[in-house]
């Protein structure tokens, strides 16, 4: 069945280092993927998305990589800052599906 999961529930990085958050999915029909950031006490906030006809997309300090061969999605955050501390969720959708499927989430903490 469909599932979207994350390899690590928590990730700690030093301020200024790059962060990589991973996500695996099992539905080979998935064609749209989103990363969300959720800060404490707030709703998830859209970060970046990617469609299956791409393998890489860059935003401001963030890059999403999609490997359809192994059904793997990653979010890279460059020069991690204290404000990046949050829980990060991946979500996926297969064409025609009515809803996104969200992963469990990875908590990113920044060490000074």
């Amino acid at each position, binding site marked *: 069945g469909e599932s979207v999961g994350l390899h690590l529930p928590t990730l700690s990085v030093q301020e200024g280092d790059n962060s990589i958050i991973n996500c695996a999915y099992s539905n080979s029909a998935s064609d749209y993927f989103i990363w969300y950031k959720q800060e404490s006490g707030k709703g998830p906030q859209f970060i970046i998305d990617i469609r299956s006809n791409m393998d890489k997309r860059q935003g401001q300090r963030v890059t999403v990589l999609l490997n359809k061969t192994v059904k793997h999605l990653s979010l890279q955050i460059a020069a991690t800052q204290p404000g990046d501390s949050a829980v990060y969720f991946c979500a996926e959708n297969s064409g025609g*599906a009515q809803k*996104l499927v*969200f992963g469990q*989430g990875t908590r990113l903490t920044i060490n000074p």
Partner: protein
Amino acid sequence: GAGVSQSPSNKVTEKGKDVELRCDPISGHTALYWYRQSLGQGLEFLIYFQGNSAPDKSGLPSDRFSAERTGGSVSTLTIQRTQQEDSAVYLCASSPDRAGDTQYFGPGTRLTVL
């Protein structure tokens, strides 16, 4: 422009009481979603509205849960005879048009059932 808003931000109720949670989606968004998020957990899909189509209620955990969307805009999630396990943050999201596209979330309502 204004984002998705939800009210109340916090709700404390006693076991057995009914509660109503409100969501105001982004103006013009045709799709509206409700999710539940328990402490430290991911998002659990509850229900989805798209335009005038019949809602997708496949995620509602029991018949104590129901939702309405009036006039294609505001939505209300109702939980009857609340139980302690209903305690969670209830998140609403809307998206512009096509189902499954980027969803924009509200801040959520934190429900505590004593």
